[in-house]
Each structure stands twice: as structure tokens, then as C-alpha cells.
């Protein structure tokens, strides 16, 4: 996975990126988890806070700089 991340960071010159699928949200390069609940997840990103609100959030994968969450996403806020 580390190798994939390195390749990704080489190819994609971004501090972070967020993938939103039908029922999944995949976030790379978060710094900290501020809140982790079924209806709301708040992540500290580089220079802003990412606030996800929705229903039935469930963490599927939780790694150092990567988080995969399933659930119904209703709203996404970039708080600077």
C-alpha cells in the first residue's frame, strides 16, 4: 500500500484528495480525526476541516493517512 501511495503522490501532485462514490467516501492525506460518529465525521485536513454529514456512517478501513467510510452522504463542508 505504501508503494501505491508513493506512486500516487508522485503522479497526483495534491496535498489531499477525496473520492466520493455512491455509498463510499475515500479520503487521502487527512491529518487527524476530530469526530467520528454515525451521522457526522470531522477530519482535520491540511489548512481546513472537512465536515461530512449523513446517515449510517461506518468506517471500513482506517489507516494512518487514509480512511474509507461507507454510508449515505448528505452534505460535505470545507471549513476554513
Amino acid at each position, binding site marked *: 500500500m505504501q508503494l501505491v501511495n508513493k506512486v500516487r503522490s508522485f503522479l497526483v501532485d495534491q496535498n489531499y484528495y477525496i473520492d466520493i462514490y455512491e455509498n463510499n467516501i475515500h479520503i487521502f492525506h487527512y491529518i487527524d480525526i476530530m469526530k467520528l460518529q454515525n451521522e457526522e465525521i470531522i477530519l482535520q485536513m491540511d489548512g481546513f476541516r472537512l465536515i461530512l454529514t449523513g446517515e449510517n456512517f461506518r*468506517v471500513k478501513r*482506517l489507516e*494512518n493517512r487514509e480512511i474509507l467510510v461507507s454510508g449515505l452522504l448528505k452534505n460535505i463542508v470545507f471549513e476554513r
Partner: protein
Amino acid sequence: MKRFIWIEVEAYEPSKVLLKLFKQNINVLDVQYLKHGLRFQMDASQVKKLKKIVGYRFRKIHESGIYAFFDYFKQKWLIFAGLILFCFFLFLLSHIMVSVQVIHSNKEIRELVTKALDQYGIRKLTLKKDFGEISQIKEQILKDFPDQLEWLEIEVSGMKYVVRIEERIITKQEPKKERCHLIATKSGIVKKMIFSVGDAKVAVNDFVKEGDILVSGELIANEVVTGNVCATGEVFGEVWYTTNVSIPLNYEEKEETGKVRYNLEWSKGSLNHLIFRPRLKNYVDEKKELFSLFGIPISFVKQKEVNVTPKVYTEEEALEKALQLVDEKFNMKLSEKEEILSKNVLKKQVNNSTMEVEVFVSIIEQISGQVEFQENKEEG
């Protein structure tokens, strides 16, 4: 290769556990939400970090990938060990030969072949040889003993070798006799003469004594010996014997009732032992060998119940039985051309429920035999 393990933890608020895992820098994969907790996969090298999380009891469920198999093997080693032992035992049962049975009436031949087989590795408690090896050994033994063995077959029957042999009988051609008489081997009355060469000295219905010349090898013309031949033929005569037969008057008559019970039997040498207690009081049995376990034959026994009735022969019946026995006794010795002419009871006596019978038997049998003689050379 990274080693992952499955962990289960009880928690009413799973997100709190996840946050604590995050704080400890523990990466979790394949997170599953249970009714009262979580199940997830994590790197086995990070397990120690779980101890730092207070308030939750993390339980290792199982390993993942190939390690899961190793873990399972470690838990169930007794079953695996048993399975391996069972396979090993099965291999032994199917590949170890427990006896070598050499079938032949001649003890010397049996010993000779047993020794040769032993030399080539066919002996008890050894691994079973394959078909090719057995064929080679057969050929080699036949080559080693060309004068003694005609044919040899090594059969694998369950856990034993069954060796059948045909002995080579080299018949030495008897040197052709030049001068011989046919003489009487027994005293009797000549009844039939069949000869191709020679000069008959007796006629049918003549009484001859043992040693008398029946057919002479000297050819005589005008009272002068003109030539010598080997008299060839057969002379049959009536000869007489007296024989004694003893018949017990009491006997048992067995009648089958139709009731049948089954049993198993093992044998050691000439002794047979029933495995289950027989449930019938009086029975006759039929046996069929099922298999041989380490050289001990196990047989299936069909026991048929019989009613045993004690009976006594009448004098006439006993006499008839005695004459039958006489017939059997003489017929065993007689050839096709020989026969019993008559039987007469000389004496009968009943002693302690036994009848003693003396029988006079008249038989037509061959009474001739060839004897060589020296040529009479007249001097002058």
C-alpha cells in the same frame, strides 16, 4: 509477506474504539460492525499496541491467509497427527505381507522354494513387491532350479503371498528288457489273459500259485528254444481275501430344523475359535474364509440347528453297512479293469454294541508281473 490477524472487540460505541485505534497508529482493514462490537483485520506486528488501549478486551479470532491454516493446524494437531498415523497404518496394512504360503505336497520342494523366496526378499513382514519384481523373481527361481521346478506362480492374496508350484518330474527311461517272463504275483484262478509277446504256459480257469510262469519269454519250437523275448501283457485272476469289519450299532441321526445363526471364527494352526458364543445347542456349520488379519484367517460361519436322534442299527442294517465298508475298502485299491466278484459273510459277532464281521471276498485283479531271466546257453 505481511501477517494479518482478525480481532474482535466488544463495544457499544464502535466509533470510540476506532478513534482509540487511530490514536495508537493502528491500521485497521475490513472493518465489520457487529451487534455489540467490531471485527477487523490488523497487522500482527501491531498487536502489542492493543494493550495500550484501556477499557476494551481485544480478542484474537484467527489468522488470515496461510497463517490461518498454520494456526488451525496448531489447534488441531492431535487430529492431524491421528490422520497421519491412520494413513501410515493403512499403508502398512496394504503393503506389508504377513505370511508366505507355499503350496505343494512335497516337503522338500516346499523348503527349497521357501529358502529361494527368502533369498529374493519374499518373506513375511516385508513390503509387498510389485508385479514386475515378482515376475523377475519367478523367472530367476525357475532358472535356479531347472531340474526341480516345472512351473511357479506367486500370487498376492491380501496380506500374504500364495506360491503354487509344479514339480518337474524327470522320468528315467527304463532300459528295454530283452528276456522276461510274466509270472504270477498272487495265487488264484486265471480268468483273463491279454498278451502281445510270449508263449502262454497257462490257460483260463487254471489255478496258479505265486511265482508260476504265466507267459514265458522263451520261444520253443519242437522242444528247442528258438528265441528269447520279453513277454508283455496282463493276466487277470480270481483271488480271495478275508477281512474283518467292526460296526458300532449305536449312531446319531441329524435332522436340520431350518434355524440358522451366524458367527465369526478365527483359526490358529488346527485350532478354531468362535468369536461370539454359539446360540444353538446342536448344530452343523459351513465356513467361508473372509480375510486374513496378520496371517490369522477370519471365517464366516453359518450354523444350522439340527435335531440329534440316537438310533440303533438292526442286525441286517449293520451287516449291510459292514458290506458297504468292505466294498469301499477294496474299491479304493482296484483299477478300472479289476472288480469285486463276490462277498460272503463268514462270521458275525455282537460285542458291547459293536458288530464284528468277518467277510470272505473274491476279486478279479491283475496277478501278473514281469521278471527278467538269463539265457540258457547250451554247452557244446
